């Protein structure tokens, strides 16, 4: 069994000075025929799909035709129209020295620029297939 452990990202304080709960992240490599993108992704059970990309991830899809168009629920934006693409995904250590394939994932690219964000989200379509332990300090994934 392979185990990947990631430290939560701190999220600072709210307007009243109360600490906002830290953010569980994992590190991913996404690969298509056009390129490869790697970086941190936020675990988000509020997102219905697989990967919600930032602009860097969208760039590795340039010129590829989407599989389909789908409306799905984003945790902040609500229902968003997205083009659905496939990419190979690898779980990685934060320094990308070790990786393991997690198979093909679907990337849901919003059709409107205003719905892009700087963060990449990993939604339930992927999370529901992984064995994840969250304890507030570390996110551990066992494969």
């Amino acid at each position: 069994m392979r185990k990947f452990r990631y430290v939560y990202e701190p999220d600072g304080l709210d307007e009243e000075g109360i600490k906002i709960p830290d953010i569980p992240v994992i590190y991913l490599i996404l690969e298509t025929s056009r390129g490869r993108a790697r970086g941190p992704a936020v675990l988000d059970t509020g997102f219905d799909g697989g990967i919600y990309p930032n602009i860097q991830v969208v760039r590795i899809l340039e010129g590829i035709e989407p599989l389909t168009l789908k409306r799905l629920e984003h945790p902040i934006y609500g229902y968003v129209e997205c083009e659905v693409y496939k990419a190979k995904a690898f779980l990685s250590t934060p320094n990308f020295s070790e990786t393991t394939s997690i198979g093909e994932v679907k990337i849901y690219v919003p059709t409107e620029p205003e719905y892009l964000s700087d963060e990449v989200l990993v939604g339930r379509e992927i999370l529901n297939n992984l064995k994840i332990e969250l304890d507030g300090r570390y996110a551990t994934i066992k494969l």
Partner: protein
Amino acid sequence: MGSKKISISIPEELLSELDSLAEKEGVSRSRIIREALNSYLLRRAPVKAKEYPTVLWKIKVTGAIRLRSPQRVRKRVRGEWIVEEI
């Protein structure tokens, strides 16, 4: 590409809304009108000119370098995404 001055007529109420928005966002009237016109033309652009992903094509067509939206999530995670060509 150069720009040209034109004069247009719009209802006073709309002008007042435009001025409020310009003041709130700290941008010029012209900029808002330019962005609105870009969006309008984009919506009416022929589908055959489209490239995928649509969002990249829209950014390219509108010439937007920075995405500006109050709906945009602030960045909370420190690491950067790196893109490599295969």
